[in-house]
């Protein structure tokens, strides 16, 4: 709390310019203003706008080159070998570009990033069938086993940045996010998934009327439809960081796994190929640079 306290002027006290100036200067001293000496609602958009008190920068761009009505789409084939090649949404034309000086995110700042798009995963047949990942040997109720997949497979859209220069030629995942480029098959531990969106790759379930006390003997394969997907990320860095641009890349298909007691998503090349793909239309990528307080 900030209070401005000056002794009162008493009869007989000297009144001079210096004294009066000191009193009036007290009201404009650095750090003197806070909520204790302002009425509720006294600081509003006119006082905040352009003064960098809360928001320092904001920018947005369309994301992707498809159209909203799905007439044209971007198509990402699933990986057939490890690691998956990163596909940049928009092919380089829909990045967030922060200019020649970039945005410098200080330790007292936060960078908030949001993205959304429309996605449709397509899988032909059951390339994930036994003995591939996700195969479950469910009791079929007749002394045998039934192959029902757990459907824990997904595409990954993750955020990348360039902290090198405005040439935007050195993209790396943002802090807290992995790039799925290491391991065999390539994988990423779930403790490095701070800036990603996942899209389910396929869906099947025990057919209605066929589940009986933990057993099933038939399944329903449901074709995935268009769905809205969105993601968010925020960074309050431990040291000042200059960022020149942001982009969103896609890789897949991955499946859930656990190794050495650590959960992860690992590449699932059994469902790789041109007929196992992800279609994208268009959305938006936006970033806000703000002070933490």
């Amino acid at each position, binding site marked *: 709390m900030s209070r401005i306290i000056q002794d009162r*002027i008493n009869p007989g006290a000297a009144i001079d310019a210096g004294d009066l100036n000191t009193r009036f200067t007290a009201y404009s001293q650095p750090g003197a203003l806070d909520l204790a000496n302002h009425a509720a609602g006294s600081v509003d958009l006119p006082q905040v706008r352009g003064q960098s008190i809360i928001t320092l920068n904001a920018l947005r761009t369309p994301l992707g080159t498809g159209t909203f009505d799905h007439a044209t789409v971007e198509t990402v084939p699933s990986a057939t070998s490890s690691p998956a090649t990163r596909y940049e949404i928009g092919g380089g034309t829909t990045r967030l570009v922060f200019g020649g000086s970039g945005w410098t995110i200080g330790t007292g700042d936060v960078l908030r990033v949001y993205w959304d798009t429309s996605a449709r995963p397509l899988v032909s047949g059951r390339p994930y069938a036994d003995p591939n990942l996700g195969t479950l040997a469910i009791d079929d109720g007749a002394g045998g086993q039934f192959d029902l997949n757990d459907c*824990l497979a997904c595409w990954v859209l993750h955020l990348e940045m360039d902290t090198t220069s405005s040439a935007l030629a050195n993209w790396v995942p943002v802090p807290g996010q992995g790039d799925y480029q290491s391991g065999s098959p390539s994988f990423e531990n779930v403790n490095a998934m701070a800036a990603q969106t996942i899209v389910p790759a396929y869906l099947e379930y025990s057919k209605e009327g066929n*589940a009986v006390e933990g057993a099933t003997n038939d399944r329903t394969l449901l074709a995935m439809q268009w769905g809205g997907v969105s993601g968010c990320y925020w*960074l309050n860095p431990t040291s000042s960081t200059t960022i020149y641009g942001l982009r969103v890349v896609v890789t897949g298909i991955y499946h859930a796994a656990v190794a050495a007691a650590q959960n992860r998503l690992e590449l699932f090349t059994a469902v790789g190929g041109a007929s196992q793909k992800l279609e994208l239309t268009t959305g938006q990528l936006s970033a806000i640079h703000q002070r933490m307080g």
Partner: protein
Amino acid sequence: MKYWTQHQARTSQTTEADQLNAEMQASQSAITTLDRTQTPQLSYSPTNVKPYALHQMWATGGAPASLQGPLWGTGTTRGEQTQYRSTSGLAAQFAAITYQNYSGGWETAHTQTLAGFRGGHLHIEWGGQVALFPGFQQTSNNYHPANPKRMQLRIQVAGVTMVERLGVARSMGSFRVVGGGLFPQGDLQVEYQWRYTPAGQDDAIVFTTLTPAPNPHLMQAHLFGNKVLAIARYR
């Protein structure tokens, strides 16, 4: 409407101490009660506004320092719900929620303390990802109703629900839950909670019943890649 001036100085006027005192007090009063129409637009900047005077943010992350980013928690389980972590599952599923270790109800995945919250409007964003097993969402063989699987999500502030969502119903899906409201001053505790659909009558809960026990437990759901951001706007 408020006025800055109580006494207007005139040329050749006799100076009195109380006239100056009244003027100063009027000015001080005016500063503490200025409204938005009277506050000069350019009178505020980061140099003369105290930190957290107008707004304040709290973000998860930063532990350990070598791993930046906003995920909550620490170490190898950063960003995950850690209440239920089965060690009896399959290698090609997450070590997570099973129907052997979770029977239903709301659980708190993360607790955040908004230290120094001074009262005002609070906005909270929670982003993350969900994995769930949809295989037995239709369990109507014995005329039981279907049992659609979903990971419900809610944010509680000081024990009061700020926002609640039906949550994720896809086998692998991302979510963002956003809530806001007016809250009183204090070090508010925010709880990020989830609730998964309980088992239906016909759900399979083990990998197979044909091999000798113990049979691997089927993963039913998990919550991972979680991060939260809280923003307070004070005046």
